[in-house]
């Protein structure tokens, strides 16, 4: 037999539960367009039934339920999908960075066009041909000097544009490294808050949303691995020898390892960005066991452009007794394998390669023309002169030929010194000019190949970026399908909660009427 007021409590608990669910619905709707928000669900479960089995349980058939409770505020999220999205975001970051940089490089070699380097090369060769027919013609000599100066300046300009691209990348790299550090700090802060709430038995859903959003930002920058940590807690039991029994409880915190192996066994414990330790023990040098309390550490990274090739490095490492032996040295190289940081390193390498190719082209052009030119004779009988010069006046061995390519000043000052012919000074056979103009196929082919290489790489980066975007779109769709707020669904749920709330209230009224009936029996 249950008591007279038994039903009141059941209905009241239902009213509370519906209210809580209604508040969750409201929270969901309010955050329908919040980035990174995960829909929440007030998970209801029937409360224990009455009576419970016991010696003096009341008689009668069966148990009667005692209503409903909200047992959990659940965050509807698929962590596996999160990891996938993070991995793909890293690839997107890498290819986006490549694509952006290479698009800049492409503007240096904008072909086919009527104003690109290929057009200047054309004019250059054609003028040599003209000179080969009219070796003593002043107008053609002047035009050759002009054309050559334009060509050399265009090559200088291309070189300086490529250098600017590299310098910009270095600047971006240091900013991105700083972003990584900021995100790490924020994640560490969230870690601590989450652990406090989770260990108290609550669900820090919204904080975890924030942290997941930060992880996505981080994923775009650099590849990383995550490890969820546990903390050792007394269970309240003791073992046979009377010692308290501890158990590992998840505390909701995460460790982040940068650019490392998926297999935890292979991970380098020194390569953590955000480090969380539960309580753990280690044996010190004297052989005694030491217990280390939980500590949180954030390490920092920075970009170093002075090394060759440039790289990211660990800086401001915290000496962490958790890592035994603690072997960090500031300035250790950080190996990144994906993300924008990796994209920057790759793009830098690529652009320096192109700059090297341009240097090679300029050197080939200058050397092969010079080799012929020194054997020729100018109108004034001068011979043995170089046509092009390219040494850096302050550092002749630096190899940056394209940056310093210029016409021999003696020739610019006196066009008679162009050695177009072979033989004596008064012979105008144009033989040298003809031989120089015949260098054309070699140089043209080298330039075409450079343009083609840049085109192929840029094309690949663009395609990969687009592909990653499509792939991510699909993954985001799947994530949204699971975790996103559907207004229709929330409205339907709202109606449901409202109706249950109304019914529960009616229940109380009815029960009240029943009590009235009992009371009125006395009259």
């Amino acid at each position, binding site marked *: 037999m249950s008591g007279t007021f038994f039903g009141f409590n059941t209905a009241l608990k239902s009213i509370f539960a519906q209210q809580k669910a209604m508040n969750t619905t409201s929270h969901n709707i309010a955050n*329908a*367009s919040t980035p990174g928000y995960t829909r929440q669900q007030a998970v209801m479960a029937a409360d224990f039934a009455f009576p419970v089995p016991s010696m003096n349980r009341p008689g009668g058939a069966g148990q009667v339920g005692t209503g409903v409770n909200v047992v959990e505020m659940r965050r509807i999220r698929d962590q596996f999908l999160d990891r996938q999205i993070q991995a793909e975001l890293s690839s997107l970051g890498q290819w986006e960075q490549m694509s952006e940089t*290479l*698009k800049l490089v*492409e*503007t240096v070699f*904008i*072909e*086919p*066009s009527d104003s690109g380097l*290929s057009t200047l*090369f*054309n004019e250059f*060769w*054609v003028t040599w*041909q003209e000179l*080969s*027919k*009219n*070796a*003593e*013609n002043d107008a053609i000599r002047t035009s050759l000097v002009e054309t050559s100066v334009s060509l050399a300046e265009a090559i200088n300009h291309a070189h300086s544009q490529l250098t600017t691209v590299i310098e910009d990348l270095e600047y971006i790299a240091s900013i991105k490294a700083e972003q990584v550090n900021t995100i790490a700090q924020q994640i560490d802060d969230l870690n601590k808050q989450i652990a406090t709430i989770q260990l108290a038995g609550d669900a820090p859903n919204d904080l975890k949303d924030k942290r997941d959003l930060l992880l996505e930002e981080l994923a775009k920058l650099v590849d990383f691995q995550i490890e969820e940590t546990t903390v050792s807690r007394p269970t309240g039991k003791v073992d046979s020898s009377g010692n308290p029994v501890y158990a590992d409880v998840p505390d909701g915190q995460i460790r982040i390892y940068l650019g490392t192996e998926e297999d935890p066994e292979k991970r380098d414990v020194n390569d953590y960005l955000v480090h969380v330790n539960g309580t753990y023990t280690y044996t010190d040098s004297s052989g005694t066991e030491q217990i280390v309390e939980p500590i949180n550490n954030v390490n920092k990274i920075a970009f170093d452009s002075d090394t060759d090739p440039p790289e990211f490095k660990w800086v401001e490492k915290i000496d962490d007794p958790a890592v035994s032996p603690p072997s960090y040295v500031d300035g250790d190289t950080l190996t990144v394998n994906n993300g924008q940081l990796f994209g920057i390193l790759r793009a830098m390498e690529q652009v320096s390669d192109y700059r090297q190719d341009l240097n090679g082209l300029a050197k080939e052009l200058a050397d092969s023309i010079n080799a012929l030119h020194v054997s020729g004779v100018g109108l004034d009988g001068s011979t043995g002169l170089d046509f092009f010069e390219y040494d850096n006046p302050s550092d002749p061995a630096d190899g940056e030929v394209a940056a310093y390519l210029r016409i021999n000043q003696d020739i610019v000052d006196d066009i008679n010194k162009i050695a177009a*012919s072979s*033989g004596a000074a*008064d*012979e*105008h*056979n*144009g*033989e040298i000019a*003809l031989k120089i*103009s015949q260098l*054309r*196929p070699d140089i*043209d082919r080298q*330039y*075409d*190949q450079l*343009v*083609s290489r*840049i*085109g*192929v790489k*840029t*094309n690949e980066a*663009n395609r990969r970026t687009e592909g990653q975007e499509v792939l991510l*779109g699909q993954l985001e*769709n799947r994530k*949204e*399908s*699971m975790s*996103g*707020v*559907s*207004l*229709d*669904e929330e*409205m*339907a749920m709202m*109606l449901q909660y409202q109706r249950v709330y109304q019914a529960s209230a009616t229940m109380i009224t009815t029960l009240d009427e029943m009590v009235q009936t009992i009371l009125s029996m006395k009259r």
Partner: protein
Amino acid sequence: MRITNRMLVDNVLRNINRNLAQLQKTQYQQSSGKVVSRPSDDPIRVTQALYMRSTLAEQQQHIKNMKDAKSWLDATDTALMNFGEIIHRSYELAIDGANGDLPEDARQAIADEITQLIDHLVQVANTSHAGRYIFAGTRTADIPFAYDDQNNPSAVIYQGNENDLNWEVSPGVTMTVNLTGAAVFKVTGAGNVSDTFDVLFDLKNALEANDPDAIQPLITKLQEELDNNLSQRSIAGAKSRRMELAIARAEEAEINSTEILSNLEDIDIAEVNMTLSMQSYVYQAALMTGVKVLQPSLIDFMK
């Protein structure tokens, strides 16, 4: 699959964006008239276009070279023709002068005309084309033929050389465009006297000396000069003819290259227009569906 409002919005935005990007690309093609405008648009096509561009520029240069060569050869031919006329006239005069019945006065008059002809022939030998002496070998800037003594000439000295002017007429192929003064006017080498002129001077001297017997062998020599002139003219003529044919052939090749380049670089206007209107159609459809899909929700039907 659970569909949320955000998914709809995201999908509509993404698709509209993609349509717009395609539309923009096609529009750029239409307005620039070019299929490719940067290397990454189609790296292979761009490389081919670059190659065709330099091939075309080379072809155009070779056509220009051949036309220049032809006009040089035509100038040479004209000079040789004048040369031939002078020799021919000298030959006639020599026959006249060899006639033993001719009075001395008449011989003197013929000698005067020969002097004039020698003067004329020096001018012809010093013919210049576009500022260059065509019979000077490679010493094209210096006058090639000069009297040994300006006031009392007895010979003409060649100051040019025996070297060739070689011009490129197709990739790696050169042609000698000049006939050297040495070959045309029979000089054994630079700085020596011209045998051709010597014959004329001998004729003049024989006439002035009133010696018909000495004129007789000179007639034979003049005949040889005429033969030499003819063979030189036929060389120049054959080269000029060769240029004419080669120019016609090269111009055909140029048209061909231009067409290939155009196929590589230029848009097919009809095709691009079709694509453009199709894409703008798709874009409008995407906008329309977007409006239709995003608008309604359960709220519209509550109460």
